[in-house]
């Protein structure tokens, strides 16, 4: 159990309150005070769950995240998703369907569990690649064809994720292993 910082509580309060205002659309005193009551009760119910840490380097606030970089990252991600989506669309409409899947194994060097979560989520969100397993620093990714995992193998996407948390640039992924037959998958 860890104590939650005031900064983290304030951040959750503000975001939940914004959510309430957008959902209700009323800005008068009664609705807003009802919102404050419900947000505080939600925070009270979730207090224990929020103070539990799943990982050692778990953080309950976003202090390490560089917000300006995050805005750029979202835009970059949308472009990547669109490009990959067009590619997958072309594959799925081809006749006969080209079947060229492979499994990727690699090790990452990222600062926190959150960075790994963002990388895994970004890989799954990009059409053509799905994160299968994340264990410690090891990732297993299933790719629909060779062009789909180009952005991962060339270290482009992992570097963007690293830039969300740190200023310095360095190599992020190591030991890339592309598996194309079932016998090699069993190690």
């Amino acid at each position: 159990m860890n104590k939650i910082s005031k900064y983290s509580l304030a951040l959750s309060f503000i975001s939940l309150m914004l959510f309430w205002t957008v959902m209700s659309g009323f800005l008068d005193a009664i609705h807003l005070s009802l919102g404050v009551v419900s947000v505080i009760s939600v925070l009270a119910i979730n207090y224990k769950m929020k103070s539990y840490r799943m990982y050692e380097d778990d953080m309950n606030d976003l202090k390490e995240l560089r917000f300006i970089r995050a805005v750029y990252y979202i835009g970059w991600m949308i472009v990547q998703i669109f490009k990959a989506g067009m590619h997958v669309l072309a594959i799925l409409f081809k006749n006969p369907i080209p079947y060229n899947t492979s499994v990727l194994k690699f090790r990452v060097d990222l600062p926190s569990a959150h960075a790994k979560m963002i990388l895994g989520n970004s890989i799954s969100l990009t059409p053509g690649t799905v994160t299968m397993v994340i264990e410690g620093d090891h990732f297993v990714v299933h790719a629909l064809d060779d062009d789909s995992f180009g952005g991962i193998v060339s270290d482009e996407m992992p570097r963007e994720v690293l830039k969300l948390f740190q200023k310095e640039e360095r190599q992020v992924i190591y030991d890339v292993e592309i598996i194309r037959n079932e016998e090699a998958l069993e190690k």
Partner: protein
Amino acid sequence: MTEIQNILCILFVVTGILFMLAGSLGIVRLPDFYSRTHAAGTSDTLGVIFIIVGLIIYEGFTLISLKLLLISIFIALANPIGTHALTRAAFKKGKKPMLKNSSNPKKGGN
């Protein structure tokens, strides 16, 4: 102004429907579980997001479009996690993906 809005909206919604169609076709056409999750998980996510963006453009800048934006953000956050949970469970259970150079391509990765 409304003309441009309508044209953009139609473009986005049609693209979204194309992605949804590709996802549905992919579920039927692709041969094994893992490649089907590509079609079911990721193409569908993109399709739904495109349709919602089209609706946001149709609606203009109002409270409803803000709500639609929130919906698309939640879909973009939650859908990859669902896909990951599915593939992770299958992989942990020992389901082998059918790969290009597999010895028995007809069998379908088991």
